[in-house]
């Protein structure tokens, strides 16, 4: 299959078409289900991946965050990484992953940041909802425990990040290192597109977090539903992160814009309807959509069973 120009998009039911031809493709790509890929998409059985490694342990007393020194946040060192796709290496690459008219792939130099090892879970989000008295019109399955939370919008994800930052900054339950970070100009938020991609592929231009070959034992994709966060081992994945491919799409704090990526001066057109980038694909996707460079986008109010998020700690 040759690469085609497409953009993954999710709508909230009432999409307003725009003047831009580039963005019109987004609208064309919408399906009645709210999710549309640029190609046919086969029905697949439930993912039956089993793990020899124990799954992560979450601490109920610590907001159900992972039982780790930094509550599951992993340091990503400063430095450059290759961003976007080179179709010569990755035949599944889509047009919107091209860096510019003259370059297929770019290099982005990022300062140090931290990212959550696992996707935010249902238990973690339920604690937030209970303690912050946060209400969602359509509730996700609150009994799903350690599964990644889904059916949350971009705004819900940010609300969770704001609440958790306030909790971690003030609570004695938070590790001292984390509290120190947060009181020294670091903030809990969503990762931006570049941070997410670097965390997923490391400093090499990998197609998937574990390498360039499709592996059903490394990610939950082409399946019927989510699996518990971090339950699929991935020893080859950079920085020890899990589920960077598949399980649920993950919101980022980047507006959807054509490359080259510029986190300092995003050329956002305030007259156009907001679309925000999500990354990583979901259980509902084929392998082409769980690649490290694939770029999905959705309305910030979209709440879908295949969209979740993970948090990052960044210096602002």
């Amino acid at each position: 299959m040759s690469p085609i120009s497409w953009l993954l998009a999710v709508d909230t039911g009432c999409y307003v078409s725009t003047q831009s031809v580039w963005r019109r493709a987004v609208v064309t790509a919408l399906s009645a289900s709210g999710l549309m890929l640029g190609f046919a998409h086969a029905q697949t059985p439930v993912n039956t991946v089993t793990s020899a490694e124990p799954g992560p342990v979450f601490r109920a007393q610590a907001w159900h965050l992972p039982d780790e020194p930094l509550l599951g946040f992993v340091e990503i060192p400063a430095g450059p990484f290759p961003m976007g796709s080179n179709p010569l290496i990755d035949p599944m690459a889509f047009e919107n992953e091209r860096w510019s008219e003259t370059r297929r792939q770019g290099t982005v130099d990022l300062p140090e940041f931290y990212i959550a090892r696992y996707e935010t879970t249902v238990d973690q989000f339920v604690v937030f909802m209970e303690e912050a008295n946060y209400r969602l019109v359509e509730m996700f399955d609150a009994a799903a425990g350690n599964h990644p939370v889904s059916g949350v919008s971009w705004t819900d994800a940010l609300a969770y990040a704001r609440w958790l930052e306030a909790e971690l900054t003030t609570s004695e339950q938070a590790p001292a290192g984390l509290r120190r970070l947060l009181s020294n100009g670091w903030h809990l938020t969503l990762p931006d597109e570049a941070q997410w991609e670097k965390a997923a592929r490391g400093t090499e231009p990998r197609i998937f977090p574990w390498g360039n070959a499709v592996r059903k034992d490394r990610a939950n994709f082409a399946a019927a539903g989510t699996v518990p966060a971090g339950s699929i081992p991935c020893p080859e994945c950079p920085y020890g992160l899990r589920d960077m491919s598949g399980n649920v799409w993950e919101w980022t704090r980047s507006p959807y814009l054509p490359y080259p990526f510029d986190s300092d001066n995003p050329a956002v057109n305030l007259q156009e309807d907001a679309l925000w980038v999500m990354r990583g694909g979901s259980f509902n996707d084929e392998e082409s959509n769980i690649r490290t460079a694939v770029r999905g986008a959705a309305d910030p109010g979209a709440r879908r069973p295949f969209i979740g998020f993970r948090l990052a700690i960044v210096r602002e």
Partner: protein
Amino acid sequence: MQSYSDKRNSASFSRSPRSSGATAAGAPETSKRITGRSLLAVPALFTTAFFLLSFLPRVQGNQTLVWSFWAATAVLAIWLVLMYVRTSASGNKKSFVLTAPKPQHYIQAMVHLSVYTYWGWHWPPVQEHALLLLAQLLFAYAFDILMAWTRRDNYLLGFGPFPIIFSTNLFMWFRDDWFYLQFLMIAVGFMGKEFVRWNRDGKSTHIFNPSAFTLGLFSLVLILSNSTDITWGPQIASTLSLAPGIYTYLFLGGLVVMYFFSITLIAASAAAVLFGLSALYYAMTGVPYFLDSEIPTAVFLGLHLLVTDPSTSPRTPPGKLVFGILYGLGVFALYSILSAFGAPTFYDKLLCVPLLNLSVQWIDRAVQRLRDNRPLERIGLGVIPSRRANLAHMSVWIVFFATMTFIGKTDGRHVGDSVPFWAQACVEGRASACDRLLLIESNYCADNSGWACNEIGAHYIRGDVAEQDPERALGFFARACELRFQAGCLNLLEPERAMVADPRAFDLRLLLREGGQNLLEMPESDLYQRACEHGWAHACQTSVATVL
């Protein structure tokens, strides 16, 4: 008394010079009475028809609505059974008193119906409500008959329930999920008419306008429980203006009522007071008093068709004049009071009517001092009503309304709903302009304008229009963002920036509706042209660019 008997239906007919009981007390001299135990079939028929309506798709579409119908049917059915048992045991026969139809019932009802037709033509929810109006009529007849027969043996059968149901629904009806309250509201209206009575000019008569009584009572409860959103009240008040030239339409309908029932002085004086006070307020502050027009459309409707019930308003011309003036003053004051308490302002026209009804006897007595006042009699304000004087007053009212229309104070454009106008007035420090700006933007935000939500969030960050409240601001930014307004999303990431942007075309379609017009299909060039005319500077540039 002549009597007839009809063995087929065990009923008897009689002509009587005067019927007994409270209902029949006001019946004309020539009335016909139908008596018989089988007459219970009539409320049973109304109940059955009412019950059958619940199987139509309009009702079946909502489970609560279905249960509301069935619960109301059950109440009526139980009541019918008890009445049957009681009449069987006592041998008492119930009767209907038939008289010539009363103009204050059928003419009012026809005017109401014409308003529904014209308004419904331009606002589809009225069409969807038509079946529920019919259901309320059936319920009202069954309820009223049973209530009358519970208290006495006769019921004056006529068009009485029509104006009560129609005028109640012209101002408020409950949403489908709460429609059982609509039947309760109707029942309360009829009970108010039956039980809350006084002796006026030697006759027992109801004190309160039945629809105004129940509307006032339910309005109070809705305000106190902050649950207006379970009704269509605000939408009803604002969508009347969707019908083009609605003021002229209501004016013409009002002339019919004025001609037949001599209520010109009430409606005209109330309108004149409201026009006058609005103009005075504008002259003093530079901003309009009412948001949507010089007199809100629903108030204009109310002063023609709600407050003018001949049975519950003064009978003397000076009394009518005072009554109208008090209504105008009451509405004007209530608008500010409701605003000050953050309550929906559309209740302004409803709350003061029961109080005014209570003052009717006092007003009529007070103006008796003006008896034999020659100057007043010369201008038709003597205490003795005359049709000629009413016609003269109508002429004055026609000239007054024509003048107001000519200077653009009725169906003309009104700046009160223009956001740029209030934004400028707020900057200039005009009276309550910042509060009005926040109120208008809140309304538009509730209508899904992302731009308006973002503006409110920015106000709460900057503390310019409202007191600083960053937490509250985040809520508005989140809503703006979910409505795909990009600046709202960026503000959610960095609230302290309080970034603002011009409204998108979609926002303009909401911001320029002037009370609810559907602009979603309007071509963009026309939209921007309209926005430019309404003071949106950025739209003028877009509009010029489109033309070029």
